[in-house]
């Protein structure tokens, strides 16, 4: 059986044209997807968490959920973390659970585009959906990101190559890549501009000064770039973790947001972050509509309070402030600084994941779940905020994240 127009649950591109062939409830072929997408669909059944575990002993799902709830309700300051690789329905339940527990809840944006959110809170953000880029952009800038390896179909579907309403091919678009290293993406660019690591803020700020007639110190190739940005009909800047993870962080993003904002005095210019996990935008969305804040939220007062740096997971763990943790669809042991994640080994940690992860290896309780977007339906938000319906292409006896979390909520309320 061929499932057409399946949404890929890997990266923020959320490609929705994947054709997945299944035979006897096994995926046998994947068309249209990138290499990572294919790997995700074809290998989703490998290295699974075979059973619910407590202290590495096999237990029933009910027992594991019961133990998890006991741990969480007995904790003074539990942490719930992850969310970006599961469906919105699960995210909404996770937030509800955090509220009931008086917990801290954070999602993976905090180590990804959290600084982008901080920049937006300061400067606003002039953005557009990816179809606007395909249909209109004649100048496309990728800054501090490497879609050729991280968002593999971005060029082909959304920006450089597709036929759009007003731009018919790559010939009608100028592509600029700015990075600290010569990446695979730089090879697609019409112009590659290399900068030294840690100089994004200076460069962008000088560009903005030059736009306002004051940036003499700006290198010529960037002066030239600013001129082209002013002259284009529709410009777009995509940016990645090159801005958010390096020195300056939210200030780098803030500078970029302000540069793009100011360009709208001259022409139409937008900016869009290259969101990583397929539903990290959804995690920010659900948290915002339920709590007002997209990440780093604490419920200990009985109402939501947000403070990145205080309630963000890396900090909470590094300061050893939480005494239990529930990790949903994420692997902080692989993704956090070692000095931060090792606290997870000192406290009772509960992991909900389809697969064995490094975090599940150190967890007290492991709960196997269905893979969202392959074995479970739900909503996911693309990097530009467009919501799509994840599909279920194979059956499983495992419960979805949402179903497991809803059981936990029932038990906490009982």
């Amino acid at each position, binding site marked *: 059986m061929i499932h057409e127009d399946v949404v890929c649950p*890997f990266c923020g591109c959320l490609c929705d044209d994947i054709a997945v062939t299944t035979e006897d409830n096994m995926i046998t072929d994947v068309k249209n997807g990138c290499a990572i997408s294919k790997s995700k669909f074809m290998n989703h059944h490998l290295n699974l968490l075979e059973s619910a575990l407590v202290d590495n002993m096999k237990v029933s799902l009910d027992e594991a959920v019961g133990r998890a709830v006991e741990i969480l309700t007995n904790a003074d300051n539990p942490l719930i973390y992850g969310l970006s690789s599961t469906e919105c329905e699960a995210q909404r339940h996770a937030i509800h659970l955090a509220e009931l527990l008086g917990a801290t809840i954070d999602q993976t944006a905090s180590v990804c585009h959290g600084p982008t959110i901080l920049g937006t809170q300061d400067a606003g953000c002039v953005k557009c959906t990816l179809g606007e880029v395909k249909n209109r952009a004649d100048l496309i800038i990728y800054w501090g990101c490497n879609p050729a390896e991280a968002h593999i179909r971005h060029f082909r579907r959304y920006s450089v190559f597709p036929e759009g309403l007003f731009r018919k091919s790559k010939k009608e678009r100028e592509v600029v890549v700015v990075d600290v290293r010569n990446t695979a993406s730089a090879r697609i660019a019409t112009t590659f501009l290399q900068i030294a690591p840690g100089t994004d803020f200076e460069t962008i700020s000088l560009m903005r000064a030059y736009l306002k007639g004051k940036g003499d110190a700006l290198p010529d190739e960037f002066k030239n770039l600013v001129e082209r940005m002013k002259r284009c009909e529709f410009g777009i800047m995509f940016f990645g973790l090159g801005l958010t993870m390096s020195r300056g962080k939210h200030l780098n993003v803030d500078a970029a947001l302000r540069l793009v904002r100011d360009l709208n005095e001259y022409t139409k210019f937008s900016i869009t972050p290259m969101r990583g996990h397929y539903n990290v935008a959804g995690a920010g969305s659900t948290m915002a509509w339920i709590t007002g804040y997209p990440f780093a939220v604490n419920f200990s007062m009985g109402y939501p309070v947000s403070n990145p740096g205080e309630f963000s997971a890396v900090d909470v763990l590094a300061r050893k402030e939480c005494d239990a943790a529930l990790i949903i669809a994420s692997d902080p042991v*692989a993704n*956090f600084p070692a000095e931060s994640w090792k606290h997870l080994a000192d406290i009772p940690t509960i992991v909900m994941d389809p697969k064995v992860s490094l975090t599940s290896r150190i967890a007290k309780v492991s709960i196997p779940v269905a893979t969202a977007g392959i074995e479970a339906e739900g909503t996911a938000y693309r990097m530009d905020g467009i919501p799509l319906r994840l599909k279920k292409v194979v059956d499983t006896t495992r419960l979805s994240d949402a179903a497991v979390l809803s059981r936990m909520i029932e038990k906490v309320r009982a």
Partner: protein
Amino acid sequence: MKIVLLSGRTTKQGVTAEIGKTSDDYLQNVAVIQLNPTLMEQMGAKDGDTVEVQTAHGSAVVMCHKSDIGENMGFIPYGPWANLLIGTETQGTGMPDSKGVEAELKKTDKNVESVDELLARIVEGRK
């Protein structure tokens, strides 16, 4: 050898993480550092040799590969090895300094730790 450490995604890292984080494929693709050939020559390292990377926050042994990256830089794909080398300070943002950390590089005879060894080293004695 002093370098500035960069981290990021690679296609192989993405593909193999989807096989499984404990798979050998994953280890082969994230316990690596991409270096400039000139730098490797200066260190006397060949493609596939192991190097020890040391920062203010920790150290990791990874396999080195040639790439056309700048001479003063090294690139490690996101993963547990890259995260041995970065600190927890977020300057109030929630985001650690994951890119642009200063590191010291030297050739080593040590082997790349397996996932189990890495976990055991960090977790050991903590429970």
